[in-house]
């Protein structure tokens, strides 16, 4: 199934604003992150397991255990700093 991935702030600067990726049925945000890490050296660096990243699924903050569905919009970004 196909999902859209969006990036913001420092992650966007490294990887661009968005991309699409085909993921297997049963994928989660965590398994998507692992798949994306294999796409390029830049992906591997900014999405590395040790990096403090937050994730959103369909525009709501989520845990990395969240399950994906066809057409999902997933976002990865650094800790937020508004206000």
């Amino acid at each position, binding site marked *: 199934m196909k999902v859209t991935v969006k990036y913001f*702030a*420092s992650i966007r600067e490294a990887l661009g604003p968005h991309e699409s990726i085909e993921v297997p049925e049963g994928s989660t945000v965590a398994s998507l992150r692992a798949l994306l890490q294999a796409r390029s050296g830049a992906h591997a660096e900014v999405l590395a397991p040790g990096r403090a990243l*937050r994730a959103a699924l369909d*525009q709501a903050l989520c845990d*990395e255990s969240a399950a994906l569905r066809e057409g999902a919009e997933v976002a990865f970004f650094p800790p937020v700093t*508004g*206000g």
Partner: protein
Amino acid sequence: MAEPRVRIQTEDFDLSAEVAALRAGDAGVGAVAVFVGTVRDRNDGQGVSRMELEHYPGMTERSIEAMIDEAHRRFDIRAARVIHRVGPLLPQDQIVYVGVSSAHRGEAFQACEFLMDYLKTQAPFWKKETTPEGARWVDARVSDDEALKRWGIEARNVVQTR
């Protein structure tokens, strides 16, 4: 219900007009609490000459709408509004407005602080500031996570449990 509760905009806002709109037509209002966040000219020991604010269109509005719903559940308030600016900003510029009206002051004060604490760690905004050494993304603060914890909510912004 013409007026939106949440506005994300590049333009500045007029505080007195916003407060007037917040309580217009509601004679049950006895208190208005307002918070305005502004751009400082220093951060983490360095001078800041400008700032750029990025957000996640769609999610930002939805997340703040949900925060206002939660404020209505927790506090006996009449109305709440949030304005957050994005794009380029300069020191002394207004960044964010939170306005809350209620019958008595206690609930307005509390709901206003609750909304700001919530927004700081849960709304998708990112600040990039320009210093003499170049542009840098602003680091999130542990103290902001702790501020939200006072309301019984785990922020998990800087302090992640994984």
